[in-house]
């Protein structure tokens, strides 16, 4: 059987993928540029087919706490929003990291700070990979750069979230959310049965059998000695994720004299900038972090010994560039190029920035 190719917006692809990956519940509140996720789920009516719950909550705060509740029972639950809405969710996200609950959060970023604009931005990098909420926690952060990856990372996000009992986040932006391209949707995976959930999530609070002790889902621990041990356990888990789950794409890097480092939609625009550069005889490659946390530091460090300079290209004032510089550790010049507040750079602007900052 040949694969069915659809033409979908990134946001629509996330909604279809959620149904197909057997997600149990979606809780959200509309905000541009990601409202098509909730709209598509509502149009598809998965509650009639797979039994998936789709609920428009009264606020973003309510939605993330519904996710907390659903995740506590071992269900595959998710929420989505855009930058200002994701800021509202930070308390719930920190609580979920503290209670070690798996879930999927989607942030289709727009220009900030504050209510900002509704146009594309990547200015929530720090919020996503350096915390966002309070406490020593990490999110597994996936950055899709195509509509296909928007669909695929729903599956990958849940897989990693459940593997490590940790929230995962898809960090997209208005470009990837709103653009349409070809996508092959995943096949239908049935939602897990209650007994499968009990087997896979022995920690979940989903109805106690006499044979086991009560499962308690909480981030609260008043005894600092115990809380330190909890934190040590979290850190050990984060170290394991850093070792095993780094993902990146290297595009035309082998012969490159200069490297662009970019994620998400910026990486797509960089590919065109590379076409322009190579047509003029300048050998440029692209290193695209797919996991923003864990960050692909090792491969960045490796290329630092091979190229003349790196340009971190981001739709922000210079956030990921700090992680690039940490990885490079002074070995080679690292500069940043960005546009701010919802303005998107064009491919020729990137090439111009490369020549001005690194040549």
């Amino acid at each position, binding site marked *: 059987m040949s694969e069915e*190719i659809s*033409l979908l917006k990134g946001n629509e692809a996330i909604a279809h993928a959620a149904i197909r990956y057997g997600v149990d519940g979606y809780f959200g509140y509309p905000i*541009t*540029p990601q409202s098509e996720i909730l709209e598509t789920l509502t149009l598809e009516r998965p509650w009639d087919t797979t039994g998936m719950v789709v609920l428009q909550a009264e606020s973003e705060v309510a939605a993330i706490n519904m996710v907390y509740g659903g995740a506590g029972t071992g269900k595959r639950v998710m929420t989505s929003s855009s930058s200002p809405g994701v800021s509202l969710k930070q308390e719930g996200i920190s609580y979920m990291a503290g209670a070690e609950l798996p879930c999927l959060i989607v942030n289709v970023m727009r220009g900030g700070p504050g209510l900002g604009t*509704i*146009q594309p931005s990547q200015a929530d990098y720090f919020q996503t990979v350096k915390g966002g909420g309070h406490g020593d926690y990490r999110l597994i952060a996936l950055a899709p750069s195509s509509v296909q990856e928007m669909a695929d990372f729903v599956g990958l996000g849940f897989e990693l979230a459940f593997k490590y009992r940790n929230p995962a986040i898809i960090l997209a932006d*208005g*470009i990837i959310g*709103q*653009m*349409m*391209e*070809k996508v092959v949707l995943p096949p239908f995976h049935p939602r897990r049965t209650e007994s499968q959930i009990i087997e896979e999530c022995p920690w979940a609070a989903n109805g106690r059998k006499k044979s086991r002790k009560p499962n308690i889902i909480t981030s609260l621990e008043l005894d600092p000695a115990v809380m330190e041990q909890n934190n040590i356990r979290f850190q050990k888990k984060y170290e394991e994720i850093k070792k095993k789950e780094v993902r990146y794409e290297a595009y035309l890097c082998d012969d490159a004299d200069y490297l662009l480092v970019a994620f998400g*939609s910026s990486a*797509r*625009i*960089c*590919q*065109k*900038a590379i*076409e322009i550069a190579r047509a003029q005889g300048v050998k440029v490659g692209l290193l695209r972090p797919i996991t923003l946390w864990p960050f692909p530091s090792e491969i960045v460090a490796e290329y630092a010994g091979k190229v003349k300079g790196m340009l971190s290209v981001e739709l922000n004032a210079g956030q990921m560039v700090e992680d690039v510089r940490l990885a490079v550790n002074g070995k080679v010049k690292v500069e940043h190029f960005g546009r701010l507040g919802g303005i*998107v*750079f*064009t*491919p*020729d*602007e990137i090439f111009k920035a490369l020549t001005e900052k690194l040549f």
Partner: protein
Amino acid sequence: MTHEIIIAGFGGQGVLSMGKILAYSGLMEGKEVSWMPSYGPEQRGGTANVTVILSDERVSSPVLNEFDIAVILNQPSLDKFESKIKPGGILIYDGYGIHKPVKRKDISVYRIDAMDTAMELKMDKTFNMIVLGGLLKVAPMVKLENVLKGLKKSLPERHHKLIPANEAAIKKGMEIIRQV
């Protein structure tokens, strides 16, 4: 072969849906496609544009700084995009919306009086398909049969009865476009 196209005009003129039908037609033709709208508060009266790329290869950037073809339906869009057409590229404009002359001499310029024709023949609902017909006459990047397949795919089933009217509009557009 790659076609990098900008379609721009007033919100409500069917700019985004014309782009969508073109993208679906490309899909039916087996091409790689991308459709990137200017999204946001654009409503009837505001400006709207969409970048459509049809290619035999993987599409890199959905965001472009210059275009092979610009389809321009109002004056603000001409002011914005005239300088962004590649030398040797194509400009198609609707005579109704443009009142200042085109300055570029290094591109092929075509005029289509789609708005006048649509009003005259009471085809105003398919105005954007007249324009699409003109575009496909000048740059035949997809076969008409694939456009019809694309229409079918992009329109909800309850609107499939409108396909013949859309086909007629496309053919009308092919007739009336002329080089300036």
